[in-house]
């Protein structure tokens, strides 16, 4: 590789580092506060590390004052169910849109694109009324059902499936696979990287989702993590910042982990699509 000029390289990295620092700083503050005793949090002099460690107390309070573990469990359950449903619907749909020829395919894809433009708040009231009529409000189903079909997932997987060679599908048909078998046995394994990316995004969105669970859920034991934190700050009237930030750190940790895992899958995905 040719040696690039040093100065532009330094400037480029400096800009990137500043951007990264700006992104990370709220999280750093969050973690820092979660380690400090109440007295230090609003001290005029901000320091990253506490003078007196209060981490154990903060995290213990976070788990004991509210059922944080339960919230986390709810969060995992709900995001897992949503992703499973989204994958189960998006993969066959994406396969049909990308590789099968049928009347109305163009219109169906246009509908998918159109649905991407609809903000989630728009159908909130009809969904609420529908769930109320089905008597499903204030249940896991109330959070899961409205998210079972992800048009973004359909779109993403469709774009990826289009890159799968037609010969591969033709070979599978000659070998005797049904269209469903092709979806699950051929398309799915070749699409792992794309699916991993989608899983990561779906997890992050649904884990962080506050608006819809806030509307659909009243019971504390069904609350998802962001909702749980909201309960938390209400209970304590916002006075006890240490445990609140400890809870926020705990809730954010799976997201950071998911991102790091997906990052590795992305790289694997790139090397995998390199094969012909």
């Amino acid at each position: 590789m040719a040696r690039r000029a040093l100065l532009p390289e330094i400037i480029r990295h400096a800009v990137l580092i500043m951007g990264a620092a700006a992104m990370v700083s709220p999280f750093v503050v969050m973690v820092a506060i979660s380690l400090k005793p109440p007295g230090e949090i609003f001290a005029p002099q901000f320091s990253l590390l506490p003078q007196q460690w209060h981490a154990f107390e903060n995290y213990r309070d976070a788990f004991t004052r509210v059922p944080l573990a339960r919230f986390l469990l709810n969060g995992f359950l709900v995001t897992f169910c949503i992703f499973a449903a989204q994958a189960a619907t998006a993969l066959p749909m994406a396969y049909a849109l990308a590789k099968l020829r049928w009347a109305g395919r163009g219109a169906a894809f246009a509908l998918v694109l159109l649905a991407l433009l609809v903000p989630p708040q728009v159908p909130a009231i009809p969904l609420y009324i529908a769930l109320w009529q089905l008597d499903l409000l204030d249940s896991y189903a109330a959070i899961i059902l409205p998210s079972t079909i992800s048009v973004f997932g359909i779109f993403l997987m469709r774009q990826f499936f289009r890159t799968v060679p037609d010969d591969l599908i033709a070979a599978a048909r000659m070998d005797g696979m049904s269209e469903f078998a092709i979806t699950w046995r051929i398309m799915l394994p070749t699409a792992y990287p794309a699916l991993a990316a989608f899983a990561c995004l779906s997890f992050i969105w649904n884990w962080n989702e506050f608006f819809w669970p806030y509307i659909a859920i009243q019971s504390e034991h069904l609350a998802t993590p962001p909702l749980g934190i909201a309960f938390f700050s209400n209970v304590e009237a916002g006075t006890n910042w240490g445990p609140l930030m400890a809870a926020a750190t705990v809730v954010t940790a799976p997201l950071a982990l998911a991102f790091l895992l997906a990052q590795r899958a992305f790289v694997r995905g790139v090397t995998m699509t390199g094969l012909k």
Partner: protein
Amino acid sequence: MASVSLEGIGKRFGATPVLQGVSLDVADGEFLALLGPSGCGKSTLLRIIAGLEGCNAGTVRLDGQDVTELPAKARNLAMVFQSYALYPHMTVRRNIAAPLELRRLSAWRRPPLPGALLPSARAIRAGIAAEVAQVAESLGLSALLDRRPAQLSGGQRQRVALARAMVRRPAAFLMDEPLSNLDARLRGEAREEIVALQRRLGATVIYVTHDQAEAMAMADRVAVMQAGRLLQVAPPQALYDAPASLEVARFVGSPPMNILPARIGLGGRVEVEGVALPFHGPACPGPRLGVRPEAWALGAEGLPARLSRIERLGAEAILHAALAGSGTVVTVRLAPEQAAGLSPGQALHLTPRAAHLFDEEGLRRPLHATLPQHADHG
């Protein structure tokens, strides 16, 4: 193995006709090459036989049975693709086993867990494993069974694709330019391998290619296609010696046949550029004379031409010579010793020893060599 019979196959993509009334019979155990330039519809025809593509008209028969409406998986045909189309996430072993597993194991026996517990499934799996091992052995793939396609060379992938096609003993093999992704040396080896395999299995093979040398070298019969039509179906030598039309004559043979505007003179004598040649044929509109590069003789008489370039290829020499009258460049194939003394710029006289006559529509007309009159003098 089975015979394949096509009758009046027609196919349109939208308003564009891709295939028009293609009828073709492939005998049991025959190696038939579908030869044509890209876009002539040969791959589409193969996909229609495979059942991967529907047709707008006509009938496909396998062993006399109408399969036109059957889906691909019900036809028991195997296909080898140009890109090999191996399943990238499966090992070679599983790639080869896939068609057998899909046919013999019902869906609920396929997943590994119930599969391992059910004795019946285990017996079927053992049978499959044995057949996979045998096919892999016969193609020299035994050492590669646990690799993935990405870890194989082009030639190895091609053999895996063949193994996957062979393993379920299909009624016929369909091959869509299976060698065009290989380098020249491997292609030669693979050619022999495929032909040997076909002979050994007594397999019916329909082989699509745009490479006429490949078609001629491998096939029992060659079907030449152009613009969605079948031009001629004949054994390689017959195709070369007696092309039915100008298109076939142009397409088969390398360097291609020289095509010269001709005139049928008095008594049916053929003239090119005003020079009478030792052939006579029927009067017809727009006659053209086709001469293979190796059919030219150099001599003291004949068409005057000027040598512009010589390619000395070792086993032969190819001359490019411009005819004196029109400047049309003709190619001449000579043995190297015949071309030894020649140099560019030299004047030549060319006489065809054999030729073909084509009329205005490009159809071949009978042409007879005139009895060599001046031979009597000398």
